């Protein structure tokens, strides 16, 4: 028995190499979020950014997973999702005779929905079509990836051993696809078609043609079955994936129309210039053309927008910009690790737009704090260049060594050959990750309210003491939004970032949140090896309150990143505003012990791996749980939120300055 958890990471890389884009590899159990669809019987399937594979696979070796994965990638390579009904009607005459456009048809109706709706049992047609497509893809894989042949063969023989041949046309067809010689003569035409599909270099329309040829004979078998299992499938994954690809085609059409419009406009201008104002018929004609093109463009634009939101609603949020990882979780109640329990999605914040107002505030904050923070960090500044003497190779001769060498030669002894000196930079090799809690509670205002800033106080300004209600400034003061925890967190990060950049240390800034074990989110504002740029500032500004606080996986992921960075000294500083909590973080919702213990374990693992950790919280009741969660002297409760940037730099200097 093979476990997906063992091979998931390799499979994701393999898929990325083969397909040239990233796919999340997720277990079919994680498919639960898609309530409308079902995966195929063997637990495989795909959505726009994910390939689903069974958590356990009965296969002789790990290549079984690769066969299933390649089948899914093959569907994309073979153009299954590029199926268009209009083209099918042109290329497959047998389909044209059957097809009657349904009344409910709109330009946005899915092509597969139309195709299967042509048949009286759409579900049956879909299953038959899938069988043909699978055969076509397997044939394609064997030809294009000759190395896969033996894996397909070994997996196929295992599958054939596991099942039994029956008279059912689908089982018969599938077994034939896996290489079994046909047993039932009545299905010989079907198996012949499958074999042909595997050998020929056909298109998706070849499979459609095969569907039209064989549907009736298969339909007969199922005609007398009461309560038929083949209900019309209103919603199917391939249909939505094909609709997703169709959006791209529409986008191209849109670009085409816009180009045509530009050309028309230029021509109209030319005509106008040539004929002057004497004859304006041609100009009017051109105007009409442009108008119709404009209408066409607007309709298409609207359609694309509507389709995009429908596709997103059906297939779920697009996470194609994220990468995903799975981490263990410590089950405190059973004193054991839950293997590959949490899925972490890592996403760059650069993809989200930040509020320009926040960016401005952050810029001001940097100016305000920079000098104090910089001073603290300068204490640990590296010593710079140092001359190293008595070495074998260098840019200068070391006089002392030369004299000694000469003395040795004179004395008839063999001299020391290390008589050069060289300037060397003293390295400071620190990699740090700041892990910022982006839970919903960071949206809370800081209490007590911020003291009034008297630095800009103008004593000359008259205050209307008689009628304070009439004072316009007072109104403004009331309307001013209160500063929130997230604001201070952002500011602290920006100040640290600019200071650390001057120091030359490598550092990363990650935010974390999520909801439930299958969706822990890490938002990368700055990757460890990135430089601090305007983009980083924007990314920090884009950090915003999200959902829950599952700390364990977030820490494990940060440690994983730090370990990969290869720095001699690794530091992880977590900034949060409360205890760890999440929807399914522990058996009881209200009990935080499970989350606390998992976080403590994650911090312990980090220490064991040589990562220095520190937890900062702005939760004043934090003392109770931090004491149990963090290693000794590796936590701090910030009493005054405004102290955060200052405290943070102190902690950083202490942690890394030793």
């Amino acid at each position, binding site marked *: 028995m093979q476990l997906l958890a063992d091979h998931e*990471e*390799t*499979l994701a*890389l*393999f898929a*990325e*190499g*083969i*397909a*040239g*884009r990233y796919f999340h590899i997720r277990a079919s159990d994680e498919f639960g979020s898609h309530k409308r669809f079902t995966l195929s019987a063997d637990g495989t399937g795909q959505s726009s950014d994910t390939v689903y594979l069974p958590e356990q696979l009965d296969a002789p070796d790990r290549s079984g997973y*690769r066969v299933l994965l*390649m089948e899914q990638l093959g569907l994309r390579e073979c153009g299954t999702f590029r199926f268009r009904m209009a083209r099918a009607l042109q290329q497959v005459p047998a389909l044209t005779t059957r097809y009657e456009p349904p009344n409910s048809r709109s330009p946005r109706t899915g092509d597969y929905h139309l195709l299967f709706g042509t048949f009286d049992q759409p579900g049956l047609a879909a299953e038959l079509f899938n069988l043909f497509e699978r055969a076509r893809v397997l044939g394609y894989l064997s030809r294009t*990836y*000759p*190395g*896969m042949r033996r894996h397909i063969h070994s997996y196929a023989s295992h599958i054939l051993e596991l099942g039994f041949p029956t008279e059912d046309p689908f089982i018969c067809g599938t077994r034939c696809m896996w290489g079994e010689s046909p047993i039932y003569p009545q299905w010989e035409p079907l198996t012949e078609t499958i074999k042909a599909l595997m050998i020929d270099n056909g298109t998706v329309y070849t499979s459609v043609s095969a569907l039209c040829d064989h549907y009736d004979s298969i339909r007969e078998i199922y005609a007398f079955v009461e309560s038929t299992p083949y209900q019309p499938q209103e919603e199917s994954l391939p249909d939505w994936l094909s609709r997703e690809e169709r959006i791209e085609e529409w986008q191209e059409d849109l670009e085409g129309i816009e180009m045509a419009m530009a050309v028309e406009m230029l021509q109209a201008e030319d005509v106008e210039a040539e004929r002057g104002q004497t004859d304006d018929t041609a100009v009017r004609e051109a105007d009409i053309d442009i108008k119709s093109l404009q209408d066409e463009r607007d309709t298409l634009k609207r359609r694309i927008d509507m389709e995009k939101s429908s596709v997103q609603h059906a297939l779920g949020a697009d996470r194609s910009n994220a990468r995903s990882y799975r981490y263990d979780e410590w089950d405190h109640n059973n004193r054991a690790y839950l293997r590959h329990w949490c899925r972490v999605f890592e996403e760059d914040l650069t993809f989200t737009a930040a509020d320009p107002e926040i960016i401005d505030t952050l810029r001001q904050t940097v100016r305000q704090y920079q000098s104090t923070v910089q001073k603290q960090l300068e204490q640990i500044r590296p010593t710079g260049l140092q001359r190293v003497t008595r070495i074998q*190779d260098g*840019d*200068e*001769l070391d006089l002392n060594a*030369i004299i000694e*060498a000469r003395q040795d030669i004179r004395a008839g002894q063999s001299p020391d050959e290390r*008589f050069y000196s*060289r300037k060397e930079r003293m390295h400071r090799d620190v990699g740090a990750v700041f892990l910022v809690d982006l839970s919903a509670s960071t949206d809370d205002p800081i209490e007590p309210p911020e003291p009034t800033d008297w630095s800009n106080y103008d004593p000359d300004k008259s205050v209307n003491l008689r009628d304070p209600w009439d004072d316009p400034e007072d109104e403004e003061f009331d309307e001013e939004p209160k500063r929130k925890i997230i604001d201070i967190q952002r500011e602290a990060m920006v100040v640290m970032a600019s200071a650390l950049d001057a120091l*030359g240390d490598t550092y990363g800034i990650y935010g974390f949140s999520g909801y439930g074990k299958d969706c822990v989110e890490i938002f990368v504002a700055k990757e460890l*090896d990135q*430089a601090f740029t305007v983009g980083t500032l924007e990314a920090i500004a884009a950090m915003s309150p999200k959902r829950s606080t599952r700390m364990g996986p977030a820490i494990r992921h940060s440690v994983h990143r730090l370990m*990969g960075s290869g720095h001699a000294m690794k530091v992880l500083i977590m900034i949060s505003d409360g205890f760890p909590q999440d929807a399914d973080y522990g058996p009881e919702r209200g009990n935080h012990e499970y989350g606390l213990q998992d976080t403590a374990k994650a911090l312990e693992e980090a220490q064991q791996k040589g990562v220095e950790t520190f937890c900062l919280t702005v939760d004043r009741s934090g003392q109770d749980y931090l004491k149990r969660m963090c290693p000794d002297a590796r936590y701090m409760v910030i009493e005054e939120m405004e102290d955060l940037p200052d405290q943070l730099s102190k902690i950083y200097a202490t942690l890394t300055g030793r």
Partner: protein
Amino acid sequence: MTEAVSLNALDNEPYYLPLADEVEIFRAAYAARLPVLLKGPTGCGKTRFVEHMTWRLYRETANPLEVPLVTVSCHEDLTATDMVGRYLLKGDETVWTDGPLTRAVRTGAICYLDEIVEARKDTTVLIHSLTDHRRILPIDKTGELVSAHPEFLLVISYNPGYQSVLKDLKPSTRQRFVSLEFDYPDVEAEAAIIAHEAQIETDIAERLATIGERVRNLKQHGFEEGVSTRLLIYAGELIRGGIDPRRSAQVGIVTAISDDTTVQQAVADIVDAILP
């Protein structure tokens, strides 16, 4: 000198398959004695290109130079002294010995500084006076100002991909060169290169080139660069030497590009799927 300085005599034509107009541009740059900067990933043919061009140019001009190309592979400990020269202890006295750059400047060879950003900052500043109208090389330690030979040309290369931001080339250096960008060739051209260099069948060369294309999709994970054309050629040469293609790819590609076992496994799986 411990660093890799190859004094290339170039007796036979080094094979190079032009992918765009780089040959013409280099030729024109040489005619005007404009220094050239080659940008591109590891093993995509930058060094070979310089060798090829040197061979072409010196063959055409019938230059009697014994060493027409001086290559210096820069590394982080390479200082200006290593390039210009130094005093060496010889018997009872210290003797000045020219470095590779000075030698090229004096003789009129093409000096190729490979991976220039790897070298220390003082090295890059050193070449400034050589790359503008002055064409001189000041030697601090001897107080000499060496005027470049009329046929001398400086070529440098760097790889913008994997060096950290700290090691980026300064604009003041960058703007002294004619920049030629290199990248890995497409599957078809790369297959032709592999087939020629490794002397193997086109079919297997195509397979190796496909492996290169697919593995390069992974270049952000664990290895900074995709598999280079050079590695693919190595694998091809092993195949020609009678080693099984899978094994050749294993030792020539898989283990060579990353130490991360997961990445290695994924690359091995890609190789396994593509090779017959």
